[in-house]
């Protein structure tokens, strides 16, 4: 009992010190005046929020959302068949595969992104192989394109999609598929009428878990896309590290957080309706 109290207090202190306090500082800074010399001057203003709703920032928002949406969709397409496969194979092989999927996470994703550059660049591994095999005559220009950004984001976020999908597909009652076959369904009918609706909680959970980080991951578009398009993550980073406009960066962070909360709220509402509380364990 005493151990539990100590543990709870420690956790609370930790969260307060390193999560709540910094975040409240961000909220506070968003209402203050920028100080070009560094940090802020303590004068209240709504100027940062006014700046946020400017066309420039809305364009940034739009391209961020498009990228995150595209990433979610691509990740879903890649992850769904694999999660299905994962749910249907013998336990020991499955454990190995899940382990293999998680091992890369022991390395910083920044380093893995640099590894992707080595793979994708003009004289990189993929191009060298294709050239020496004689399949292409000149190097493919993948790096510093939208394609490279998608490859990087999908690669990095794939496990966040696979795991919820896998959990949801594994719970799928195979007898329901038998019942649908018994009633005359086949192939795609089974998929669209039975499998897809019943795994929707996993799809929503996975998409949320990919969409939200994809909005904020600034270094992958930076490194792989060559910083051509400004995204929310980059925008915020630049306000703090380049432009030195901390209040504007803070205001953008606050806005992003609010958007994420709205989406999480939507996700909980939808998943509750989809599965009558069945989703609680996944959430």
């Amino acid at each position: 009992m005493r151990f539990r109290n100590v543990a709870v207090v420690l956790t609370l202190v930790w969260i307060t010190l390193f999560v709540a306090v910094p975040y409240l500082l961000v909220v506070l800074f968003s209402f203050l005046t920028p100080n070009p010399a560094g940090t802020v001057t303590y004068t209240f203003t709504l100027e940062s929020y006014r700046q946020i709703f400017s066309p420039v920032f809305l364009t940034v928002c739009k391209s961020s959302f498009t990228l995150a949406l595209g990433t979610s969709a691509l990740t879903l397409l890649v992850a769904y068949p694999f999660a299905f496969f994962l749910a249907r194979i013998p336990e020991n092989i499955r454990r190995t595969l899940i382990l293999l999927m998680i091992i890369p996470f022991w390395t910083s994703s920044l380093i893995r992104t640099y590894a992707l550059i080595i793979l994708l660049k003009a004289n990189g591994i993929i191009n060298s192989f294709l050239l020496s095999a004689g399949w292409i005559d000149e190097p493919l220009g993948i790096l510093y394109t939208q394609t490279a950004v998608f490859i990087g984001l999908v690669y990095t976020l794939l496990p966040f999609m696979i795991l919820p999908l896998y959990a949801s597909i594994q719970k799928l009652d195979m007898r329901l598929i038998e019942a649908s076959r018994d009633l005359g369904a086949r192939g795609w009918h089974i998929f669209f009428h039975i499998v897809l609706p019943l795994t929707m909680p996993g799809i929503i959970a996975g998409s949320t878990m990919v969409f939200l980080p994809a909005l904020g991951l600034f270094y992958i578009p930076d490194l792989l896309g060559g910083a051509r398009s400004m995204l929310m993550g980059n925008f915020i980073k630049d306000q703090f590290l380049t432009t030195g406009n901390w209040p504007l960066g803070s205001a953008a962070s606050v806005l992003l957080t609010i958007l994420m909360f709205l989406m999480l709220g939507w996700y909980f509402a939808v998943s509750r309706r989809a599965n009558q509380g069945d989703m609680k364990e996944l959430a």
Partner: protein
Amino acid sequence: MERDLIVRLRGATKRFDDVVAVDSLDLDIYQGEFLTLLGPSGCGKTTVLRLIAGFESLDGGEILMNGASLDGTPPNKRNVNTVFQSYALFPHMTVFDNIAFGLKMKGFDKGVIRDEVMEALSVVKLAGLELRRPHQLSGGQQQRVAMARAIVNKPQVLLLDEPLSALDYRLRQEMEIELKHLHRKLGITFVFVTHDQEEAISMSDRIAVMNEGRLEQIGTPTEIYEEPENMFVAKFVGEINVFEGRILDVHNGSAVVDIHGRQFKVQKRKSCGIGQSVKVLLRPEDIMVYKEEEADPAYPFLPGTIEDVIYKGKTVDLIINLDAGETVHVTQFFNEDQEDVVYRHGHKIIIDWPYGWEVVL
């Protein structure tokens, strides 16, 4: 009158790894009958059902439907439907959509589907619940939805996999009667799987008793109960007392059997030779109990002592220790004219049975 054959299993064999689930089974199923596959769990009865439905493929033999082999015909192309043990209702669909599913898959238009679903709902007495979801229904209602979802497709054969096992006793009895009604009303062939012999006896036209993937006996409930062909059927269906005996004499149609040194005349169904060991089987309700002083030396009897008296309301069950050492179960119906005949623990009694009520194996 011989009815039309609808499904025929010939040498049907199914193995799971090294286990033979169904072992070269021959079974004929006739148009419109209520056939029950009865047996202990693991006897292969559900596998037979799944073979007919098309969820499992044969390792040997063949299954014919309307004279044509079902080999290679997927479940969605077979004119059979299944009521699953767990009902397997689609949780994300309303009752209406569950029942309409089969018709939708077959591409009927909306008006027809609506009429058929409503008709099926009223047949299973669920009119008005079409917009509910499965989890909002009681077990009995879910069972009815599962029935409606199957029968709305008007299959030639309806396969029922222990559909009543999840219901409580009272509801189960109600549903037994309703299933029989439904069977009569629809005229569809029912193939019903159960491990519950009471269920099998009260509902079926014919019962196929299965054990370890083989057919032990097939016949009407009366035949199965009154004339079991082997010890497995005798012991699995109802309670039975077994006496070891030896044939002393054989006459035309009857034989004399020695049981514990007493000579009983029994009906002879199979040929048997003098000196052969036999088992004489008697249902608890076929045995007569008398007070010791009523013994008539002219007729054979077995003496014993009342061990236990179990009052069951309609009947009284007696557990009797025979002097020869065996324990015998006897069920007595109350006889209004003989209310003074009350047995208690320790009473000395004798038992016998009417000629011909025994089964000799």
